[in-house]
């Protein structure tokens, strides 16, 4: 083969040529690469050094994002870190409460009871406390919307006004659907609106209305009102299914009065309370004598009671005395003995039952004494029958537009689905709701109203008793008060605040004589929050109208299972479903949160192998079971207010909605069903039960006695206390508290177990919501819990409530076991927690015999897994700046609201005076609706707490352990015959 060569070198030494060639190529490439990278070692060091230095500088310069903007000109009354209190008014879900709003750095952070209110008298309910969190709810609308798209107010107003005018000319009705309106100025605005649009039909709708009472009183007294019930004046209280301490009409007011009538620290007498009901309600749990009966039997029972009272009053009894399920002889006798100081109430929505109740109260002469008409309750004005008319009109196409304010019939009406479909087709549908909900979801326009803490307003919960609502914060979002919206659509520009003032100047100012000028009157009322006109006493004439029919009426046939629908103590009628505080509040009786459940009778459950968390179907609806001691045989109770589908991230799809099962008879909604089909399934459903053992096992935990025994010996039932005191010996020097020595007394006789404190405390102390799974894991964070024990017969148990918070033991077992001394004792007797010292060994939790210490099992704030209230800037606005937000891995517990103690101590120091007794009120004490909690200085012999600690009823929980708690409990006294 011929060999070709490229150069002489190749020809001479082809091998070497190849090598040289390759080397040259490599060198060339290497040079190129170097050039490309453009970096030598020196370059690398330069870059490295610069970037490190740069990174260090950047990192060290990083500043946290400050969202606080300093005041350019400081408002007069705002001092950073100092709280101001503004009186205001809560009225939502038919519940009224006069409140004080604690505002710190421009944010409302706590709601307190207003002691000046003659109605709620410093009490609040769990819902009132939790309503604060609704202000910072992520589910709130950011601004007006049309079909889910934001639209400016001007456009919305133009469209709605045009639509209203069109409808007015077309002759179709426009329905203004509101819940009960207790604001007198709003009433005049609505009237003004109706003047412009005469076809507007103002319809009031309440999910749980008082139709029965209103109708019965219309018949008996010629006036459809709810009278004023005086539970404090009654010596005998008989309730037929009315949960007046939990949900019925005005529970806060009634709880105050009820507790007052049974307060043994002030008087030596107490009322006796009889309760007839199917499921064990909060009120039934507090009753002295409770009869589990089917709801269908109530009519019969009332008839019999009426007949017996007639007999003992020498009147001829009415006909129709059937077989009595309960022996009423003793009750009738007792009522007769206490004629004029008895009180009979019924929770039924059937006017016939209410007529019988009226007749009984009339027979006993209770009217004018325990029941008066001088200040009728105005919080439930709606009539179911009227709403039924509306439904017919809506279905018939007579309605052209609906404006919803504070109502959610798509969710809470039995025919919600039908209403939704009809609303969707309307030419005009407007909602004033401030957050997403089922009805708003089907409305075309959303004109969000501000939260009540952002609003002006007034209220007249009871005739002649007024209160004012004032904004405690600037509107967070683009909202507008419905009053202004309505007037705008009526063609008038109205500033509602101005309107309100003018209204008060015109209507209320002339009726008082205390102030000469309106400004003073206004400012004074605004400051106090309440204003009361003297009661107009106009006794109403009694008529027996309808009574005969009621007596002759046949009750519903009692066949098979009966399902009782109740309002839940935590959620009410379901309005607040997106409120995690309320969702996490355990039901006072069942101690279950985050779900509703079917309460079934014990005996049936045992016979059928049904246990807690079994699933049964009720008319096809699947519900988890709670085996409820005291549940009447053949009845099942389920709470309403659950199963919301459009409520927000927290409240969606929790529990089951029972409203669709609710029967409507003659336009009136009934709260029980007969002949219910109950079937067992093999399914299980986890429930967040926060107390699983219900017996005290004979331990002296809640000490109780009978009223008779207490009268003879005030230490009755508390004999152990003296024994333990006499055995108290110690090797150690007795601790001395030279300044203050804080203590708390819990009157177990007053505590009704409502759970107000369990929500007031998280609001004050930044306690985090942990969610259903963690509650089920028994990791609820509540610092104050209410233990509930059953005793005696499971078919009809006695119930004891016991609030348990940190006992602040002077010989605290938790303190000496902490290896890092994170929980020391203060020289004022407080057991303190140093969160930043705690390493989380949890030894203190184990060694606390009361188990009041709580561990932060996870990071509960700013954690996607706990997406409740503290996962957004908005939600975290509720945090109290005086209290540390605890991190993961530390132990926390009740501090006796040490921040409040310090605050008042400083105030007293600045003012150069000693602290006054009762000046310091921890969050739980402040708003307790039954005044069960008292806080004070045990070193002051004149203080209320010292007197209570010396009360013969006082004892300490587990005092035999010599932990020397600073919390004392006063024995529970039941007004029962035997001791």
């Amino acid at each position, binding site marked *: 083969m011929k060999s070709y060569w490229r150069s002489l070198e190749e020809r001479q030494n082809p091998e070497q040529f190849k090598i040289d060639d390759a080397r040259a190529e490599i060198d060339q490439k290497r040079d190129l690469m170097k050039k490309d990278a453009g970096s030598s070692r020196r370059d690398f060091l330069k870059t490295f050094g610069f970037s490190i230095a740069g990174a260090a500088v950047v990192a060290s310069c990083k500043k946290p994002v400050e969202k606080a903007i300093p005041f350019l000109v400081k408002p007069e009354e705002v001092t950073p870190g100092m709280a101001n209190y503004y009186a205001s008014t809560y009225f939502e879900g038919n519940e009224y409460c006069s409140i004080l709003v604690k505002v710190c750095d421009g944010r409302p952070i706590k709601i307190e009871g207003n002691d000046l209110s003659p109605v709620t008298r410093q009490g609040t309910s769990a819902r009132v406390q939790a309503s604060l969190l609704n202000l910072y709810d992520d589910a709130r609308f950011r601004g007006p919307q049309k079909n889910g798209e934001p639209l400016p107010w001007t456009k919305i107003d133009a469209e709605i006004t045009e639509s209203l005018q069109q409808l007015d000319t077309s002759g179709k009705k426009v329905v203004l659907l509101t819940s009960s309106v207790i604001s007198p100025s709003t009433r005049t605005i609505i009237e003004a609106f109706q003047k412009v649009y005469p076809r507007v039909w103002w319809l009031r709708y309440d999910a749980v209305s008082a139709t029965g009472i209103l109708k019965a009183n219309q018949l008996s007294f010629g006036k459809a009102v709810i009278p004023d019930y005086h539970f404090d004046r009654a010596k005998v209280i008989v309730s037929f299914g009315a949960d007046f301490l939990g949900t019925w009409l005005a529970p806060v007011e009634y709880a105050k009065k009820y507790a007052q009538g049974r307060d043994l620290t002030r008087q030596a007498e107490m009322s006796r309370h009889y309760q007839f009901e199917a499921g064990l309600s909060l009120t039934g749990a507090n009753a002295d004598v409770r009869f589990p009966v089917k709801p269908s039997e109530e009519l019969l029972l009332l008839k019999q009671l009426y007949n017996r009272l007639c007999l003992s009053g020498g009147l001829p009894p009415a006909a129709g005395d059937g077989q009595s399920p309960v022996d009423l002889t003793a009750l009738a006798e007792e009522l007769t003995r206490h004629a004029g100081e008895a009180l009979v109430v019924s929770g039924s929505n059937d006017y016939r039952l209410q007529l019988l109740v009226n007749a009984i109260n009339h027979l006993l002469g209770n009217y004018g004494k325990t029941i008066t008409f001088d200040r009728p309750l105005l919080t439930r004005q709606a009539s179911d029958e009227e709403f039924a008319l509306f439904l017919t009109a809506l279905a018939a196409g007579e309605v052209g537009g609906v404006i919803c304010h504070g109502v959610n019939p798509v969710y809470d009406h039995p025919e919600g689905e039908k209403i939704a479909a009809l609303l969707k087709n309307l030419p005009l549908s407007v909602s004033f709701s401030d957050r997403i909900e089922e009805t708003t979801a089907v409305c075309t326009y959303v004109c969000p109203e501000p939260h009540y803490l952002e609003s002006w307003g007034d209220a007249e919960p009871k005739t002649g008793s007024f209160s004012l609502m004032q904004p405690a914060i600037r509107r967070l979002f683009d909202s507008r008060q419905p009053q202004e919206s309505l007037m705008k659509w009526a063609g008038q520009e109205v500033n509602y605040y101005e309107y309100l003032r003018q209204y008060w100047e015109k209507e209320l100012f002339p009726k008082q004589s205390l102030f000469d000028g309106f400004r003073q009157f206004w400012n004074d009322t605004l400051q106090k929050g309440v204003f009361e006109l003297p009661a107009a006493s106009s006794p109403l004439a009694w008529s027996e109208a309808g009574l005969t029919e009621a007596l002759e009426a046949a009750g519903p046939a009692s066949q098979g299972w009966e399902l009782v629908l109740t309002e839940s103590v935590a959620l009410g009628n379901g309005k607040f479903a997106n409120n995690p505080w309320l969702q996490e509040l355990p039901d006072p009786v069942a101690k279950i949160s985050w779900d509703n459940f079917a309460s079934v009778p014990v005996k049936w459950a045992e016979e059928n192998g049904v246990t807690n968390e079994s699933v049964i179907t009720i008319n096809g609806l699947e519900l988890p079971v709670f085996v409820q001691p005291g549940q009447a045989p053949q009845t099942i109770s389920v709470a309403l207010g659950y199963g919301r589908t459009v409520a927000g991230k927290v409240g969606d799809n929790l529990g089951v909605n029972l409203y669709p099962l609710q029967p409507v008879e003659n336009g009136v909604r009934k709260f029980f069903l007969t002949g219910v089909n109950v079937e067992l399934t093999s399914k299980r459903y986890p429930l967040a039960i926060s107390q699983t053992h219900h017996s005290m096992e004979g331990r002296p935990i809640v000490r109780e006695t009978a009223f008779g025994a207490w009268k003879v010996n005030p230490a009755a039932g508390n004999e152990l206390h003296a024994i333990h005191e006499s055995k108290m010996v110690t090797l150690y020097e007795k601790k001395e508290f030279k300044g203050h020595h804080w203590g708390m007394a819990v009157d177990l006789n007053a505590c009704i177990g409502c759970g107000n404190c369990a929500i007031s405390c998280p609001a004050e102390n930044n306690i985090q919501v942990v969610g259903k799974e963690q509650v089920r894991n028994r990791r609820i964070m509540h610092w104050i819990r209410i233990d509930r024990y059953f005793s005696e017969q499971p078919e009809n148990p006695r119930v004891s409530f016991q609030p348990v918070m940190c006992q602040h033991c002077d010989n605290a077992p938790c303190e000496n076991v902490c290896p890092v001394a994170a929980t020391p004792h203060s020289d004022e007797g407080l057991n303190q927690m140093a969160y930043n010292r705690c390493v989380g060994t949890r030894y203190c*939790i184990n060694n606390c015999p009361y188990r009041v210490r709580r561990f932060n099992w*996870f990071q509960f704030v700013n954690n996607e897994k706990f997406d409740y209230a503290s996962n957004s800037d908005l939600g975290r606005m509720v945090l109290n700046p005086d209290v540390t937000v605890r991190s993961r*891995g530390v132990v926390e517990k009740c501090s006796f609201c040490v921040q409040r103690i310090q605050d008042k101590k400083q105030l007293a120091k600045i003012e150069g005076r000693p602290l006054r007794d009762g000046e310091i009120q921890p969050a739980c004490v402040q708003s307790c609706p039954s005044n069960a909690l008292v806080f004070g200085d045990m070193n002051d012999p004149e203080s209320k707490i010292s007197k209570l600690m010396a009360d013969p009823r006082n004892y300490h929980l587990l005092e035999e352990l010599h932990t020397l708690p600073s919390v004392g409990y006063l024995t529970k006294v039941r007004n029962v015959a035997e001791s």
Partner: protein
Amino acid sequence: MYKTEIRGPLIAGDKSLRQISEEIIAPIEAKTPWWWWGAFLTSLGMLGFGLYCMYLTVTSGIGAWGLNNTIGWGWAIVNFVWWIGIGHAGTAFSIFLLILRQKWRTAINRAAEAMTVVAVMCAALFPLLHMGRPWLFFFIFPYPNTRGPLWVNFNSPLFWDFVAISAYLLISASFWYFGMVPDFATIRDKAKSKIKKAVYGFFAFGWTGSSREWLRYEGLSFVLGGIAAVLVVSVHSIVSTDFAVSVEPGWHTTIFPPYFVVGAIFSGFAMVLTLVTLMRALYKMNDFVTDSHIDAVCRILIFISLIMGTAYLTEIFIAWYSGSEYEMYMIFYTRIFGEYAFQFWAMFIANALVPQLFWFKAVRRRLWVVFLISVIINIGMWFERFNIVITSLSRDYLPANWANYSPSWIEVGVFTGTLGLFIAGVLLFFRFIPMIAISEIKSVAKYNEPRHDHLKHSGHE
């Protein structure tokens, strides 16, 4: 020639000193057997899973475990006490048998001590992990600080725990290590590879075997042994005060310190037995770990088991005798006949009854039965700790607080991880460290006739 047939030889096979060295070092020199790799990889897998679970715990929080507001301590503390108990054996073995002049211990003490060190390491993981904020564990050290007069709480049993365990770990590790120095020197001298020579040489501290060194060595052993003897008793007594000092029914008992110490030795000896039977079977160490060794340990176990039974019965009696309703409820209605009856009876049967089988020679002879019983005791002792920790917490004073506890898979994973760590540690010990103390066992070698090879070996010929 004088024969010591009465006590019998402690080493079978009439081995020369050289043979002893060679046979004991053989596994280190030999190729790693396949089962070792299998077991080692498995244990590493377990450890890896455990580490993952620890990672989950540390990153998400103690909520990853099954604990709650009523039961603040769960498997972590059960396992901690269990491991600490196992960690007792090595030192107890060496010290108590040394005091009692039981020469047969020489065949076993090295393995027992190794086990101690690994077990204490496993145990020490738990107090750290179960803290809510483990990154602040140094708060528990009594160090001078700038936080004013803030000091640790000297009243807290957890602080005593920390002191006791760290002291114990330090002493038992030193005791074990210094005991190995002559053996490391032996390996160094025999090793062929340079790396091995260097590594073992480093650990051998330049040991030459001179008389002066032996003198110092023995002196040090006695001093460390003396300290360790006290610590063996103190460490578990102190662990028991975690419970005894509290107010909880079922915890607040004065019997706890001795009861815990005995229990610890019991579980430790059972674990030694488990390991030694395995070691004998896997490495054919029958000549060193003879039937009489197994027999002796079994006899000790009978004795301790009787003490355990007595302790259990005493606890029950005192609960009744105290008249405290909380205590009685705890013992009778929670443990014996209650919700936790299974755990109680598992503990009682495994610890107090099953070991009584060792009364029978036939049982003691059969290695697999001995192995089985030793494992049962280990499980029983775990249940004892479960009984103490969990039952007391779940049914204490206020019935409203009563709650149940079951571990989450993460907790189980952490435990699996420590088991993996333990097995891996023991396997490494088998592989790289003479599993029997060569120098010590040589001292108990007895011969009926003079051995020429000894003279040769020591350079006399």
